[in-house]
């Protein structure tokens, strides 16, 4: 099996639900496991929230492009923005010994996905690639 699809949302937190529904609509009929669906939905939510909050600094008038590639044993999601890039050098991972009200997004994405990869896109902006393997219920 192989499905590829694209989607776009405005840079508003209310639109993240639409992006989740779009992905789920493609994966559920293909026999996605409940765990994989949750992992993909949560990682996407965190990634989109970060684009809206950090890359676009809360500006709700921007656009986020999504691309989905579904194969037998892997799902790949691309999230492309044209905002300020994520700087890995200044990223500080959360201290998991002390509960916090923020700072878990990148950690969750890294833990939930099998591959996470950021590339520059366009003049400015970032192409984030998320890969999840073994997303279907075992038969």
């Amino acid at each position: 099996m192989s499905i590829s699809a694209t989607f776009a949302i405005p840079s508003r937190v209310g639109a993240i639900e639409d992006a989740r529904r779009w992905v789920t609509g493609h994966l559920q009929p293909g026999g996605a496991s409940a765990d994989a669906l949750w992992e993909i939905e949560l990682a996407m939510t965190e990634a989109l929230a970060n684009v809206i909050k950090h890359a676009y600094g809360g500006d709700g008038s921007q656009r986020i492009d999504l691309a989905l590639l579904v194969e037998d044993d892997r799902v790949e999601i691309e999230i492309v923005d044209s905002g300020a890039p994520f700087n890995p050098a200044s990223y500080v991972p959360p201290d998991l010994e002390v509960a916090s009200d923020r700072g878990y997004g990148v950690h969750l994405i890294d833990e939930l996905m099998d591959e996470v990869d950021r590339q520059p896109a366009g003049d400015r902006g970032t192409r984030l690639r998320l890969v999840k393997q073994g997303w279907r219920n075992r038969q």
Partner: protein
Amino acid sequence: MMEAEVREIDGITVIAPRGPLDVGAALDFRNLLTGPIAVQGNKVLIDLSAVSLVDSSGVGVLVTAHRQAVAAGAAFAIAGAVGPVGRVFEMTRTNKLLSIHASVDDGLASLRDA
């Protein structure tokens, strides 16, 4: 977009959000908790059994609410975080701070003794 059901069981305020408890719902959810957790002696149980997804913003609201409740002298617990929904508390280790119970009954029992 936030939806929630509020009810009172044996003097415990049970707040049950519905749907995703994510970055789009976090602000309104936080506002809903503000009053109930600020009253000394109040007991507040968050019932997550109708929640489809808790993201890091949802976790953040619960962590802040827990600390504010403790500071105000209110009791605060979480219940119904079954299946994947509960894993986010393990992955962030916030389950060490938060008082998380499998069922609403367990959550109510813990608050009755509080």
